[in-house]
């Protein structure tokens, strides 16, 4: 039986994030493309994240999306979401 960390790596590795993102993007993109430039708004991000986050009991902190501005940021966040390793942090409001 895999450990939690091994399971997380497997899940993150098996998701083709570029492929998933491409289904929602309205133009070509690379990791430096701003998400809005790629045609990804919050509703698209919701639908996209549903595809990636398969564990309905995992800890989630979607408020980190505040800091997601590029496709590269998005992929990092989705990898963490897919692995269930998203940490609780309070966004800086000061």
């Amino acid at each position: 039986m895999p450990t939690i960390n091994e399971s997380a790596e497997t899940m993150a590795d098996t998701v083709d994030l570029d492929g998933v993102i491409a289904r929602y993007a309205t133009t070509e993109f690379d990791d430096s493309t701003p998400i809005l430039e790629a045609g990804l708004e919050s509703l698209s991000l919701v639908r996209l994240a549903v595809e990636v986050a398969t564990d309905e009991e995992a800890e989630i902190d979607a408020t980190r999306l505040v800091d997601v501005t590029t496709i590269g940021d998005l992929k990092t966040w989705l990898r963490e979401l897919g692995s269930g390793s998203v940490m609780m942090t309070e966004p800086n409001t000061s």
Partner: protein
Amino acid sequence: VTAKKSGRLVTLVRRGRRPACVMLPGTGGGLSMYLRLAGHLGTSYNVYGMLPAGVLPGDEPEDGIATMAGSVVDTLVEAGIEPELVFGWSFGGVLAFEVGHALAAAGPAPQLVIVDSSPLPRLSTPDEDEAIKDRLLAQLGPRPEPDVVERVVRTFTTQVAALSEHRAERRYDGRVLVQVCAPWDDETAVAALRRWRELAGDLTTGTLDAGHFEVFELPHLPRLISAIDDFLAGERRDR
């Protein structure tokens, strides 16, 4: 963000078994402006956003605030979520008041936090509606999917129509915080606050220096957070 596969309920913060907070967005259904506040509330609550019917593919908008509130509650019941706190800004605040009533009819009355909403019918003008719609569409970025644009516009149109017809009538016995954005001394805001006072028996009110669309922006958000924290701390003191 994760949503149930059925769509509308969006998990913003979840960490084990904790009290639940549901956040109801303004017209158009965008949740992104709530994220920082959700992060703060998420230190104490599991926080969920509720997309309006109509914005997801294959979904149809609903007519009337009562219908919309009923479907919000149905979605929460289906997910097994009994929120202790319901938050709404603008259109979402109007909806939150009715959602609070529906939840209180079947269980404990949730606390309501309502930001810059009116319980009175909204007097809209085509110019104002167009400006709000433009603002919503701008949030979709320079290259939105045409289907998304169509669904957001259609949902916005039904929500605006619902607001123009809705007048909150029933008194709410749970705790309510109403925060009013600047300018809070104009005729519309004064009339709205007067009516909130008639409708909510356990009401806390306050004003915010921010305008309606600026209230979640970084320079202004700490004041809103402080007001909400004080309100929630009062509830804890009363227990």
